[in-house]
C-alpha cells in the first residue's frame, strides 16, 4: 500500500515535470501581425463553443461588456497537437463552463483574444501556453 502511494506520488511528480518541461509552442501565423502584446485583457464568462482544429484550437465565450450587453468573443489557443502533447484534451473545456482568460487583444479591435492562460471556475488552469510564441519559444 505504502509502495503504491509512493508510486503514485512519483508518477504525479513525473507528469508534472513533463508538463512543465520545455515543450515548444509554435505560432502558425505571425503573432505580432495579428495581436498586440501591449494590449493585455482579461475576459470572464461561459464557454459557448470549442473548435478543436488546426492551425489553432479556439473557443468562443460570452462576455458582458461595460454596458452589460453580452458579447461573444473568440479566444485563440495553440494547435491541438501542441495542447495534446502538453497533456490537455478537448474534454478539459466544457460548453457552459465559466472561465477566465488572460491574453492579448487583436490589433484590429475585433472581439478576438490570444490566450496566455485559461482558468476554470474551480481555479484549475487549462490550455496553458498560447500560440503567441512565434516559433521561437521553447
Amino acid at each position, binding site marked *: 500500500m505504502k509502495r503504491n502511494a509512493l508510486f503514485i506520488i512519483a508518477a504525479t511528480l513525473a507528469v508534472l515535470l*513533463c508538463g512543465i518541461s520545455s515543450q515548444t*509552442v*509554435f505560432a502558425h501565423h505571425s503573432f505580432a501581425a495579428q495581436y498586440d502584446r501591449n494590449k493585455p485583457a482579461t475576459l470572464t464568462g461561459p464557454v459557448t463553443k470549442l473548435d478543436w482544429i488546426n492551425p489553432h484550437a479556439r473557443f468562443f465565450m460570452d462576455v458582458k461588456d461595460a454596458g452589460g450587453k453580452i458579447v461573444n468573443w473568440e479566444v485563440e489557443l495553440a494547435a491541438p497537437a501542441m495542447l495534446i502533447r502538453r497533456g490537455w484534451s478537448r474534454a478539459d473545456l466544457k460548453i457552459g463552463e465559466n472561465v477566465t482568460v488572460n491574453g492579448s487583444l487583436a490589433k484590429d479591435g475585433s472581439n478576438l483574444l490570444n490566450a496566455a492562460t485559461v482558468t476554470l471556475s474551480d481555479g484549475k488552469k487549462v490550455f496553458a501556453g498560447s500560440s503567441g510564441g512565434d516559433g521561437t519559444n521553447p
Partner: protein
Amino acid sequence: MKTFLNAFGLILMLALLSPSLSAQWPSYPTPGVPKGPDGMPNLAGPAPRTADGKPDLSGIWSNIRPPAGQRGQGAAATPPPPPPPPPPGTPPVATFRDVGAGFKEGLPLQPWAAEVVKKRMADNSKDNPDAHCLPMGNMQFHTHGQPRKVIQTPGMIYIIYEANSGLRQIFTDGRTLPSKDPDPWWYGYSVGKWEGDTLIVETIGFRDDGWLDINGNPLTSAGKTIERFRRPNYGTLEIDVTVDDPKAYTRPWTVRVNQRIMLDTELIEFICEDRDATHYVGAK
C-alpha cells in the same frame, strides 16, 4: 525508498522520452529499441541498420530546441539569446525563427535579399506561406517543433512532417536529378546516396519565393541544398544543411539541425484549415 526511486526514475524517463501523454494513439512500444542492463531504453546504443548494412534513419524525430528564450513573448520582444557555440568544427545550429542565428555576421545575403528579409521582418512575417496554410520549405520542416517520421525503404526515403502534413520523397534508387529546367516545387526534387554512414541528399528545383525561416531568409529557384544525415547512435539524428543559392547569397553556407528520437508515440493529424484568410493576415 529504492522502489520509489526506481519508479520515479522509470516514469520520469518515460515522461521525458514520450511527451504524448494523451495523444490520440495510445502509447505503443517502439520495436527494436536498444536496452541497458536496467531494461531501460539506451539511446546511446547503436543505430539500427538495414539489410544492406546502411544506417536506418527510420523513426519519429523531434527537433532539439536551442536553450530557452523567453516564454510567452512575441516578435516585438527582444529576440531570444543565440544558441550556445557548437563544438569546434560543427556548423552553427539553425533555429526556426532565424536559420542564420549562429552566424556572428549574419547570413551572406545578396543586397536585394537583405532588403527582402528586412521587409518581411518589418511586416511581422505576415506573408510567410505557413501563415496561410501553405507548405513550409524543407528547412522550416527541419527546424519546426512538431515531429517528423522518417521511413527508410530500399530505394526511397519518405519523411512525413506532422506540421502542415508535409510529405517529402528522397530517391535513393540511383536516379539522377532532373537536368532540364524542372517545374518549380515547394519541396524540390531530392536524390540521396550513401557515403559511408552519411546519407548525402541533393535537392534542386525549388520555387523562387521560398522562406527558410520565420524571418524570411530566402531560397530561390537558383538554389541547391545538400543535406548530410547522420545517425551516430540510436537516439540522435544530425543533419547538416548546405544552402548553395548564388541568387540570394554571396557564398554557400551550412547549418546544423539536431534531432532526437521519440519513442512509443505517433504523429498527430495536422490539417491546416484556413477558414478565414484575413484572420491569419491580421493587422490592418
